[in-house]
């Protein structure tokens, strides 16, 4: 048996902004490893699961959710100061997530359409990625994140190496699984060619086209895929609604949504990208 020199456990925080809690739940879903992880990490801040609280400092801080209120914008700056390593987890924290679809619309009109008293409701004009507010050391993509990738990040931090996360298109996972291409064989629109892998090409294996949970892969040629889909006799709006999903605010997807008329249901949509502070970055 190897003798392991006892090291102080790393202090981990898990916090959230605007989100569904699904990405932090992924940690609790590591049922077989959870208790072992607790031996290596001291979870000092995790309000979803623990009454113990700590305002920092953190060796690792996992941040879920989009920044969508003034309080959150201030809070993330404070949290960044306390975190040696800040990792955004999930599509909301990395790209603004599904709530970023409201960024296309007039903020006051959106508030008034949901709440009887919009004057009680405070939010920023746009829901945005954590990286648009503070420096982020690593991003885990996905809606939700992949448990394997979460485990890889935690393990790599624990042993002091760089996390190894493959960056390639969903298509390659389809090939590995032996899933027949749903676009070629069934004519289903699929974002697989432009989307980063991480889910294991789940949707095609379940008979659907990819809807882009993990966001655009490096150098994604979204323009080419969009025009191919549009030339396939589809209405323009169908192309925009395909890209206007859980990572629709990510640059390469957002530009397609803009070029094809904006997402469905926008209010007071005028010029693509107008009114948002983060266009073309």
């Amino acid at each position, binding site marked *: 048996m190897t003798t392991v020199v006892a090291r102080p456990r790393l202090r981990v925080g898990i916090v959230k902004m605007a989100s569904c809690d*699904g990405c932090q739940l992924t940690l609790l879903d590591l049922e077989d490893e959870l*208790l072992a992880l607790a031996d290596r990490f001291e979870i000092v801040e995790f309000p979803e699961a623990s009454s113990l609280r700590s305002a920092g400092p953190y060796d690792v801080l996992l941040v879920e959710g989009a920044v969508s209120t003034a309080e959150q914008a201030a809070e993330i700056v404070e949290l960044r100061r306390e975190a040696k390593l800040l990792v955004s987890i999930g599509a909301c924290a990395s790209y603004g997530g599904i709530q970023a679809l409201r960024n296309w619309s007039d903020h006051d009109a959106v508030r008034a359409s949901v709440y009887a008293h919009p004057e009680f409701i405070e939010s920023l004009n746009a829901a945005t990625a954590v990286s648009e507010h503070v420096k982020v050391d690593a991003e885990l993509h996905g809606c939700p994140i992949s448990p394997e990738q979460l485990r890889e990040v935690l393990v790599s931090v624990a042993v002091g190496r760089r996390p190894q996360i493959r960056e390639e298109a969903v298509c390659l996972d389809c090939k590995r699984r032996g899933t027949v291409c749903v676009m070629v064989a069934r004519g289903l629109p699929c974002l697989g060619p432009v989307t980063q892998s991480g889910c294991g090409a789940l949707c095609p294996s379940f008979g659907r086209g990819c809807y882009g949970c993990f966001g655009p892969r490096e150098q994604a040629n979204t323009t080419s895929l969009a025009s191919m889909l549009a030339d396939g006799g589809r209405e323009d709006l169908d192309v925009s609604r395909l890209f206007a999903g859980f990572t629709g605010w990510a640059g390469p997807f957002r530009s397609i949504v803009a070029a094809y008329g904006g997402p469905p*249901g926008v209010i007071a949509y005028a010029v693509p990208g107008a009114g948002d502070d983060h266009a073309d970055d």
Partner: protein
Amino acid sequence: MQTTETSGPAGSGTTSSVPAGSGVDREYKVPYITRVEGEGSLRLTVRDGAVTEARLNIFEAPRYFERIIVGRTGDEVIDIVARICGICPIAYQMTAVHAFEDLYGVVVDPAVREVRRLLYCGEYIQSHALHVYLLHAPDYLGYPSALAMAVDHRAIVEQGLAIKKVGNQLIAALGGRPIHPVSVRVGGFSRVPKRSELDDIRRALDTAVEQSLATVRLVASWDPPRLEHAQPLVALRHPSEYPFNDGRIVSTDGLDLAPGAWGEAFEEHHLEGTNALHARLRDGRVYLLGPTARITLASGRLHPLAAEALAATGLADAIRTNIHRSIVARAVELLHACAEARDLIDGYRRPAEPRVAFTPRPGVAAWSTEAPRGLLHHRYEVDELGHVTKAQIVPPTSQNQGAIEADLAVFAPSILDLPQAEATHKLEMMIRAYDPCISCATHFLDLRIVETR
């Protein structure tokens, strides 16, 4: 009249307390309620030792889902509304799919309906195991978290994780992944599993049934804080099934409505200072949803194993009047879900046609299902293209909020004279007993006690 109100900045953790009857207003500052999903604050107004008002406010950043789904098709809505809650995405998917199919007149293969029930069982198993073992049990055993509890009670935590894992495996087998599964479509499923894909889960369910039965016995043996307060209860009731996907909306007051007709008896109000809309009965009364309501209103539909386990606890009446006993009701439902999942797999017939074609038509698509934390209602106005023009989503926690406040007002006097830390813990524990899902609506709770005289 003199009023004092104090509230520390979030996270300050400071407290000051002066004994009652000293002639000085008491101040409590309780920064947070953890182990619920969402954020909010609680303000108790105390006059002459009586709690005259309990007000729970919600702080979660607004996410505007009801606007985001405008212009979307039924299938897109199913994917989007799942993201309201990472703990119970299936409840959102199921409510939406039934609503659209009801409007479009879609009749699915009965085997498809069984798969939907099986999927809902998976969500009940993972959500209830999460709440009972990881979020609520630490209150009863005196720990700040399940991880801290595991140091002394490793076997209990491991048992909870094992049950939870089976629920997640079941969801993943049917929908690809435990959180935000991808297979639910209007008209059926994009894919359904072969029987052989369920073999491992079927075997694991034998153990999960035994472990869930042990769970019922375990949580029934824990001593809860005392409370006697019966509230109006609302749940779905179905002629032959324990209510998940289907049934009529019934109450302890004799309400009986179609699952889409929620708006006939209930309405939402937007209260000042909150991001959530609160629901009330149209006559203004509050009501309670969730395991307590289902166990009480649909006990005759429990799986025989679950019914027997509930009877053996002798706590059916106590569940009705003391929300702290909801952990027993939740454990009984956990057993029900494991036992029913096992039966469904044993009777599994892979649908020949997992998805039937449909034609959208304009109108109102409305339905209610039973999320693990209570009745969830969706209502969509749909145009001739099948695109949503207006949406209303009524999550269980926004409906329970009034009942939580009413219970707190009854319960709080018993804790006002306790030491600060103990009083705080007891109120936190009580709020957790409702399993508030409040991503759609609460995370931390900031408790303020205001004394007027």
